[in-house]
């Protein structure tokens, strides 16, 4: 499958740049970021609050299948320009990770396609690398848990 999502993480830098082109008109792409119901669907999280205006704020919450909250994140929105730009902070609650700053830029390519550029800036290079490795570490954990399940069944 074609790799549409690109991640640039130059070593030694405090930022990650994620770019993606969508087969969607700009307005629809932007809508996916502002309609709470839609955000909830593709992010796989509950949207507790989403204020789409300058100086607004948001809060997301994810629960495991048993209903226990496993993840909560929040942020403020210093800049909001429809169909163009969202600047927001992102902070994972109850974790030692410092808040990060996200610049989201929405661009029209054609009438039916658009592009998103997401620049994430971290407090330090170390934190950037840690966050970059988080899904990798989680993948390892999941693989380990699955292995554990299989082993448990063998007992």
């Amino acid at each position, binding site marked *: 499958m074609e*790799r*549409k*999502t*690109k*991640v640039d*993480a130059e*070593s*030694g830098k405090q930022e990650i740049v*994620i770019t*993606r082109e*969508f*087969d*969607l008109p700009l307005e*629809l*792409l932007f*809508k*996916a970021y502002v309609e709470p119901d*839609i955000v909830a*669907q*593709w*992010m*796989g999280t509950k949207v507790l609050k989403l204020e789409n205006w300058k100086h607004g704020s948001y809060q997301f919450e994810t629960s495991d299948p048993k209903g226990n909250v496993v993840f909560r994140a929040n942020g403020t929105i210093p800049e909001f320009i429809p169909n163009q730009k969202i600047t927001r902070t992102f902070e994972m609650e109850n974790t030692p990770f410092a808040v990060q700053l996200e610049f989201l830029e929405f661009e029209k390519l054609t009438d039916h396609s658009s592009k*998103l550029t997401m620049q994430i800036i971290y407090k330090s*290079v*170390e934190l950037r*690398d840690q966050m*970059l*490795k*988080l*899904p*990798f*570490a*989680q*993948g*390892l954990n999941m693989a380990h848990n699955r292995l554990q399940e299989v082993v448990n069944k063998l007992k």
Partner: protein
Amino acid sequence: MNLRRDVFQAIADPTRRAILILVASQSMTAGAIASNFETARPTVSKHLQILTECELLQQQQNGREVYYQINAKKMKEVSDFIEPFRNMWDDRFNKLEVIMKNYKPEF
């Protein structure tokens, strides 16, 4: 996991990154590498030791000289760290695209 973390720390240092870039094009002796830096020779040696320990560099004996060369396999592994992160976002964006393609505005 420890070794992997070391790899990331190894490439976080600008001098070590410069060494990797230098050696990427051709294998070089420690002396030849050091001549490219203003840093003291023992400092460069220390960097070479760290890069060798985490297997980003390989040593090759050539007569009396020891040459350093890049370990392509290990370097690829470093870029593999990013892959699960990229996949996570790719999955989310794929979902977004499908949802919005089926989006019908409510009147």
